[in-house]
């Protein structure tokens, strides 16, 4: 077999093997020329990452064609009168609330949506590049309960809990965006999401994915975000918010759900329009069937959005798993959650659209081994799938409860997974044939400059313990659960997120006050 090694290939760390590094020892330098690659490698194949593909391109096309056929043959039930009008004008077949979509129209919408979306942080710095196989993890939202990290109590979330979620998101290095981690219940019910956004935007600089009851609430959020960025155009140019709106599968779209997607498209704010799929419940029990429903549901929102605002940024995806056929829950720990999400990620990439996926959650009710197994597995698979946004880190009890302790543990797991995603660098510097020659048989590498230069590439744990036994006992013989709890509490007690300017805080409060007045007026009539 003829083997060549690349000579002019730039490595990921920016080190060129042909240029001597400043810290190279004279001994290393002396022998180096003898073993350097002598060949120019053409079309040398490199695996930069172990990321995988669950579905082939042909299979993705079959799934997409299935969705196009469903939309043309069965169609969707659309309860939004605005959307019905948009679909009728666009050339769909509309019979009452049933809309059937000609495939060419859907294909046009897929083509006109951007294949990449850049999300900025609160300051406008470009932070999340939703393109290719880039993966960004974050928490979940709309949980009914919260697991208090100080008292251990499972209770209804308050606005102060979403403040805590924002502080934890802000502090955890591998958590890239914020969500509410629980529906705020101690405020006007219809403004729960508006208050959640205020709590998030005031306490983290990271991007925010936000849901809302209706279009009015989306407007409130846009106004708050525009206040932060100093105007609507600045927000559109460097959006730090992503809207989230759900369809009502199978093939059904509430007025609010679709109107919110249309609103986001008109406002040119990125939006996730996604179904929540219970395999065997609101979709076929077969995974390919679930993917078809997920794609078809998304496409209805996409067509509406592209019709009103061509090129509006849409993100595909959804929460997909099996319906547990005894308890009828949507399982967060099922291997099918990972497989379905990874499969849909392939279809999204095939369609040239960014993908919103799910991982890092559990069906467990307490901080335990089941939680860790389910969360770690799904985080790894989501990373390997290359889904652009992965939400759900912190979702316990099949999503019913949000836990910042789980999110803190997930942060550690994500660190491990991101290391795995970097793969193995293969070049002269990393092959280290020179170093082996210098050290010789039976020697050791601990004192080599090469080791100095590279050992920090090892992933270093922060919560996982690799102490020897005695020092571990000396530190209190703590379990992972104890360390996670302590770190979570430490973050919440001590982390200081960057404060917004007083003027901006005032503008945000004014939007909240306006929303309160509006809702008070509604309930009065």
């Amino acid at each position: 077999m003829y083997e060549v090694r690349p000579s002019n290939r730039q490595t990921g760390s920016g080190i060129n093997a042909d240029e001597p590094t400043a810290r190279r020892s004279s001994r290393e330098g002396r022998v180096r020329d003898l073993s350097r690659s002598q060949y120019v490698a053409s079309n040398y194949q490199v695996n930069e990452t172990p990321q995988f593909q669950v579905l082939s391109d042909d299979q993705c096309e079959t799934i997409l064609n299935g969705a196009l056929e469903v939309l043309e043959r069965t169609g969707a039930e659309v309860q939004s009168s605005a959307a019905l009008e948009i679909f009728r004008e666009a050339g769909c077949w509309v019979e009452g609330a049933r809309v059937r979509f000609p495939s060419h129209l859907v294909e046009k919408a897929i083509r006109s949506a951007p294949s990449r979306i850049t999300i900025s942080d609160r300051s406008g710095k470009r932070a999340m590049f939703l393109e290719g196989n880039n993966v960004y993890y974050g928490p979940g939202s709309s949980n009914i309960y919260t697991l208090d990290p100080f008292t251990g109590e499972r209770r209804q979330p308050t606005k102060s809990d979403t403040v805590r979620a924002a502080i934890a998101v802000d502090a955890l290095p591998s958590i890239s965006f914020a969500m509410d981690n629980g529906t705020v219940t101690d405020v006007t019910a219809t403004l729960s999401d508006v208050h959640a956004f205020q709590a998030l935007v005031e306490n983290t600089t990271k991007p925010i994915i936000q849901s809302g009851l209706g279009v009015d609430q989306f407007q409130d959020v846009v106004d708050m975000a525009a206040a932060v960025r100093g105007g609507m155009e600045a927000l559109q140019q460097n959006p730090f918010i992503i809207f989230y709106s759900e369809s009502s599968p199978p093939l059904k779209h509430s007025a609010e759900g679709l109107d919110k997607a249309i609103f986001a498209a008109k406002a040119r704010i990125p939006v996730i329009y996604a179904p929540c799929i219970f395999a065997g419940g609101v979709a076929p029990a077969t995974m390919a069937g679930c993917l078809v429903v997920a794609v078809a549901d998304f496409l209805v929102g996409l067509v509406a959005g592209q019709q009103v605002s061509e090129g509006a940024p849409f993100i595909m995806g959804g929460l997909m798993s099996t319906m547990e056929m005894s308890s009828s829950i949507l399982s967060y720990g099922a291997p099918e959650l990972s497989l379905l999400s990874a499969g849909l990620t392939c279809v999204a990439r095939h369609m040239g659209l960014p993908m919103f996926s799910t991982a890092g959650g559990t069906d467990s009710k307490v901080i335990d081994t089941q939680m860790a197994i389910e969360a770690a597995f799904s985080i790894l698979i989501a990373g390997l799938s290359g889904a652009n946004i992965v939400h759900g880190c912190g979702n316990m009890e099949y999503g019913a409860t949000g836990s910042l302790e789980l999110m803190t543990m997930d942060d550690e797991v994500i660190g491990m997974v991101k290391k795995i995603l970097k793969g193995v660098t293969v070049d002269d510097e990393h092959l280290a044939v020179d170093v082996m020659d210098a050290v010789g048989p039976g020697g050791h590498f601990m004192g080599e400059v090469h080791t100095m230069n590279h050992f920090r590439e090892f992933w270093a744990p922060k919560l996982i313990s690799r102490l020897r036994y005695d020092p571990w006992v000396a530190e209190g013989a703590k379990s992972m659960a104890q360390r996670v709890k302590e770190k979570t509490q430490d973050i919440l007690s001590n982390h200081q997120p960057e404060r917004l300017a007083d003027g901006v805080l005032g503008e945000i409060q004014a939007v909240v006050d306006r929303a309160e007045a509006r809702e008070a007026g509604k309930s009065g009539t």
Partner: protein
Amino acid sequence: MSYNFDELAESVIAGDSELSAALTQQALDAGANPVAAITDGLSKGMGVVGARFKSGEMFVPEVLMSARAMTAGMDLAKPLILAADMPSSGKVILGTVKGDLHDIGKNLVSMMLESAGFTVINLGIDIEPETFVKAVSESDADVVGLSAMLTTTMLAMKATIDSLAAAGLRNKIKVIVGGAPVSQDFADEIGADGFAPDAGGAIDLCKALVA
């Protein structure tokens, strides 16, 4: 005259609609008592299914197939029975409250109740408090079940209970609540008579309330 309905019960347990219909017809043709066909055959089989579901031996799709098999037999037996003689565990009104379009969980409860021998009046989704009041006043139902999937629409459960009270019907009927965001605490808070976390629990709850 006695007739052996064991095979009919088994056909319901197996979820075989064609077989249960054929066996029911065969029994009726042989002159079997239609009420006995229901109680000793169809409902008896469904009782086994309910117990097996509860113990985790059977799963939701199997229960629904069995319910369908039971209904296939019932449809044949029912026309031969006077309404007053029709065996029923009780009558339940079900609906998803105003502002909430979620249908599936409520329908699951409906099918499970029917398979447990209850008569169900399913009002549908997005039901105004006044519509619940009208349904309660016009029927002799024992229980009214309110469903909500959203934290925002849970509030309509309280409004519905208040409307029943305002119409003077609150003592006439038991009110039960359910849905993803609903808890026992919430049920107590709004003055409901009962809460169940899932469809299986709803059956036990209704049985306890009508007993």
